[in-house]
């Protein structure tokens, strides 16, 4: 199954990853090869098969709604590319 270039644009937007014009053909071909692999699933009859999301069919544990984490924001913000006054800085969003 080969992808249309417009579909690559859509995926690129969904994934927030830009695709360089010089790479687009090669990337489209490689992703199309992966989608060909997916086609192998089509012929299989999966009527009455329940989708499986956890190997042991476990569900998420619940816990009391209490604070379990201590405050690490100063330590964590040291790792930030840009932080000031306890906040992460990004380019201006609102004029």
């Amino acid at each position, binding site marked *: 199954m080969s992808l249309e270039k417009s579909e690559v644009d859509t995926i690129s937007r969904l994934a927030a*990853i830009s695709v360089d014009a010089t790479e687009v053909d090669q990337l489209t071909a490689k992703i199309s090869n992966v989608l060909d692999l997916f086609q192998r699933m089509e012929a299989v009859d999966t009527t009455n098969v329940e989708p499986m999301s956890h190997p042991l069919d476990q569900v998420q*544990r619940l816990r009391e709604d209490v604070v379990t984490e201590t405050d690490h924001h100063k330590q964590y913000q040291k790792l930030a590319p840009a932080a000031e006054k306890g906040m992460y800085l990004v*380019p201006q969003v609102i004029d």
Partner: protein
Amino acid sequence: MHTLSVKEMSEKLRNKEITSVALTQHYLDRIDQYDGDLNAYVTVTPELAMEMAKQADDMIAEGKGGLLTGIPVAHKDIFCTLDVKTTCGSKMLDNFIAPYDAKVVEESRKLGMPILGKTNMDEFAMGSSSESSYYGATKNPWDLKAVPGGSSGGSAAVIAAGLAPLATGSDTGGSIRQPASFCGITGIKPTYGAVSRYGMIAYASSFDQGGPMTRSAEESAWMLDVMAGFDERDSTSLEQPKQDYVSTLNNDIKGLKVGVPAEYFEAGLDEGVESNIRAAIAELEKLGAEIVEVSLPNKELAVPAYYVLAPAEASSNLSRFDGVRYGYRCENPTDLNDLYTRSRSEGFGAEVKRRIMVGAYALSAGYYDAYYLKAQKLRRMVRDDFVKAFEQCDVIVGPVAPTPAFNIGEKSDDPVSMYLADLYTIPVNLAGMPAMSVPAGFSNGRPVGLHLVGPYHSEAKLLNVAHQYQQVTNWHQQMPESYQ
């Protein structure tokens, strides 16, 4: 010292014949000498290692700690390590100094196991060759032209070359077992949830599972004892009492039912691999095992299902890398969208970008049912095959990979051919069952691994079978000549 078993090291440490300081220094010297060629470590931590070694010697002098106190360890660079650079093989995390320890690292630290460094890997664990690391490819100590396998290729290489006595790895689609097979070492992927994922950088959370990589099954049992156990900080950690992996190692395996699936020996399997695996099965038979034919009819569906599900989970997990809170940020972003998109496009490598995009596509409107839901149904069919097969046998054996290690560069341009080579390991991850790779010979001078798969929570049994096999074979004790 690097030719001793970990058990011998442990005895010598406790008898005061050697110190952890001397042992750790010996490994650091070997890393200096050999890692330039191998590129198995992303980061070496000599100061931390020596400081921890001194503390370990104090613990031993005071009679504290355990059997692994004072034995150095190398951690895959997927495990967050407090105050140490933790990159996951990516430019995205090249500047990331972990602010906390992964559970696995925390436990080894508590026990006084000096940290030698962080091992190289495929970027974000996405690969089967360790070639996709931002830090360059790791080489196979048995043949520098060959890949060490992946994604835990660095950990496999350091054990094979004697640049660490013990290492940690993680296995999402075969990332412990395939490199263990390619490098001639022992590795176990435990039951999903047995080892905490806390602090292990996520790739595909419903598959990711940490485990040990060592020379022998006995060493894997000791190391798994350190790594496994319930952790409330991992929402999928198994709530069950810790298993005893060690005390059953010496049980005999008479009457053990060994399942051999016909589907594991079909076209595409390298002759040298097949003959070694058949010989290993014969060896198990000599030890008293009974061979049973079993069937895993849906094996072929596992690879496509995995390559829908794992990238789908990855596209969600890796959305956290946005250039805002930590990791790589692009220069001079013009607006918020540019910041996100350029940071990700410049920070991720080609294979990671492809898998995120494939995952985003599989989850997108109009394709979710055809791909994601369908793959989840196939996942159940693959799991049910194993459950049914284990009604007839105790363990399933076969090859870990269809070939020995391939050459560096041989498959890097054709991702799908690399994906298809994981046909034996991936079904086990879909099922979430435990499995091992055990050294079982050589094909054209490159190691071959025997795959042992067991039902849920059968780690102790697998380790027992592997240990018994290693009592009558010496493949696991062999070292590449240039590193002896």
